[in-house]
């Protein structure tokens, strides 16, 4: 009984002292608008569409991002250029639905769609949360500087026939017997 009371009392007093001693520790708070928090490079924030090193759109309108998106906030329409490249006629992300999960970035075969360390996307009008391709497209290459889909892929476009891509051998002529 006596020990119980003694232990309880000392525990309470030690607790009070421990908490009080925190008064002399600097606060952890980052005062946000005045003080910029450090954003990690892999932070999953505002979504962008990047361009390849030649300045062309990377997106090939494959719809994998729209399929992967768990909240269905991506909408796009495939279009085709005269040289055979695919591109999105429109590309629309509804940021009022987007949960910044990054699945679209993982699904993208051409590294076109990428998430950036920016979160300041508040709007007064809900319609302004819907971003079109003009809003999403940036001029740079984002996180992957050298990657150009049409240069490494086997897809045939005008000016690049089959087998002319990087690390690619010309296609085998199955009707010829020559080695």
């Amino acid at each position: 009984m006596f020990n119980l009371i003694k232990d309880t009392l000392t525990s309470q007093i030690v607790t009070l002292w421990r908490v009080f001693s925190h008064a002399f520790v600097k606060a952890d708070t980052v005062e946000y608008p005045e003080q910029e928090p450090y954003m990690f490079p892999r932070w999953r924030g505002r979504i962008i569409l990047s361009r390849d090193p030649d300045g062309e759109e990377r997106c090939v309108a494959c719809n994998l991002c729209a399929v992967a998106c768990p909240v269905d906030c991506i909408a796009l329409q495939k279009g085709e250029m005269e040289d055979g490249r695919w591109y999105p006629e429109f590309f629309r992300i509804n940021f009022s639905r987007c949960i910044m999960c990054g699945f679209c970035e993982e699904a993208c075969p051409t590294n076109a769609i990428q998430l950036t360390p920016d979160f300041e996307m508040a709007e007064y009008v809900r319609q302004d949360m819907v971003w079109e391709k003009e809003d999403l497209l940036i001029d740079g290459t984002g996180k992957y500087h050298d990657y150009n889909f049409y240069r490494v892929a086997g897809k045939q476009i005008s000016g690049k026939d089959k087998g002319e891509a990087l690390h690619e051998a010309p296609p085998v002529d199955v009707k010829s017997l020559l080695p």
Partner: protein
Amino acid sequence: MTWEVGSALNIGVILFSVIVIAAMLIWVERRLLSLWQERLGPNRVGPFGLLQVVADMIKIFTKEDWVPPFSDRFSFVLAPTIIMMVVLLSFSVIPFAPGMGVIDSNIGILFVLAMASLGAYSVMLAGLASDNKYALLGALRAAAQMVSYEVFMGISLLGVVALSGSFNLREIVLSQSDGWYVIPQLIGFVIFLIAGVAESHRLPFDIPEAEQEIVAGYHTEYSGMKFGMFFVGEYLGLVLISSLITVLFFGGWLGPGFLPPIVWFVLKAFVFVAFFILMRAAIPRPRYDQLMTYGWLFLLPLSLVNLMVTGVIILLGQ
């Protein structure tokens, strides 16, 4: 205008400053809690966030003041006024400084205890009138807690009364000029402190309004300024308990002469307010049955023994 106990100016100043201080405690508590939790707390509205209180007031005054249709309207409206009234009435007997106070009553301590008992009606009425299971549970707990902790709150004070030979708070302060009563009455002080926390249902004894268990207890159904009155009433109770501890155990306004007496009083009372907030920051809430067991089986016998020993020592000294 005269500046003496009971003058109109005196009453006005005390009433005004007590309510303003109680409202400011909302800010003080949040800043102190955040200090001990390594945060900053409200610091945006005005200098150091001081105007946060004004913002809170504007919010609480302009909020919809909803009375639930299933409640008992009369007692529902009456309940929050009672707690404000009884706590403010208790302040009338507190001697803040020489010549400062509302009444110089011969039964000051008894009056404070009586008002504290009336405070239990406020929470009981609120809980019953709300017609809500959480409010009822909260009121039940509050009533049991306040009634049982009142018992040895009174008994723990009797040691001080016996030493000073008076129920008059002003005389109790004056009789401490050669030593604060906290030294001979250390056990009485600790018991009064704990009972005071339980009386004003502050954490860690906020069992009647434990958010995690019963939403907000007896004031679950209250909104707008009626909730605000419970809220400010709680802070008023905190100030009252701190002032009482200062008066009864720490020599009230007495202190070295380089500061005016009222400053000494405010300083001492603020230390206890800060200590109550520290307790909120540090100590977890006990279970309801633990609270009751602790009160009846430990604090009550201890306060009785304390009173008995004090009496024996006084008698031997004569």
